[in-house]
């Protein structure tokens, strides 16, 4: 994305960059540990997504009340796997930011920051 997004110093919303990895994407390229090409059963994908969503929701709920949680399950590079979480209070977003910085999720570092997004319906980057 060539657009310059302003990074707010405080926000109710956090962006967790590239956090969700679809089984169809990512490092394995749809191949399991035995080298078999995985058929993407839509139910499996849905379960995988829901597990991820629940996992994220449970962890983030520890820091405050969540108003909105959006997970991008796209396969294109732009915003791939981005997670947007909007807390009811700015302080809760800040607490989550502090608590999650420097930690890992599923073998990858968690990269997160405040996001200017407040209304997800309007949040289309064009």
């Amino acid at each position, binding site marked *: 994305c060539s657009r310059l997004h302003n990074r707010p110093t405080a926000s109710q919303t956090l962006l967790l960059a590239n956090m969700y990895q679809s089984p169809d994407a990512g490092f394995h390229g749809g191949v399991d540990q035995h080298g078999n090409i995985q058929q993407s059963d839509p139910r499996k994908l849905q379960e995988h997504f829901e597990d991820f969503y629940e996992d994220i929701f449970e962890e983030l709920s520890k820091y405050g009340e969540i108003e909105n949680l959006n997970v991008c399950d796209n396969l294109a590079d732009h915003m791939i796997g981005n997670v947007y979480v909007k807390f009811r209070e700015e302080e809760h977003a800040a607490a989550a930011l502090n608590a999650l910085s420097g930690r890992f999720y599923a*073998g990858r570092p968690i990269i997160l920051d405040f996001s200017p997004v407040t209304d997800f319906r309007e949040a289309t980057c064009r």
Partner: protein
Amino acid sequence: PSRDRRRKTSGFDMAPPGATAVPGAAIPGQIPGMPPAMPGVF
């Protein structure tokens, strides 16, 4: 069927294989914050 039964463990704090710089994680046989012992090097 209960969703809890097939619920996977959380992916949080799952460090990458071979990671050595996990904040707060104790590495067996090593005192946290101390560099690894290197015999013969002073």
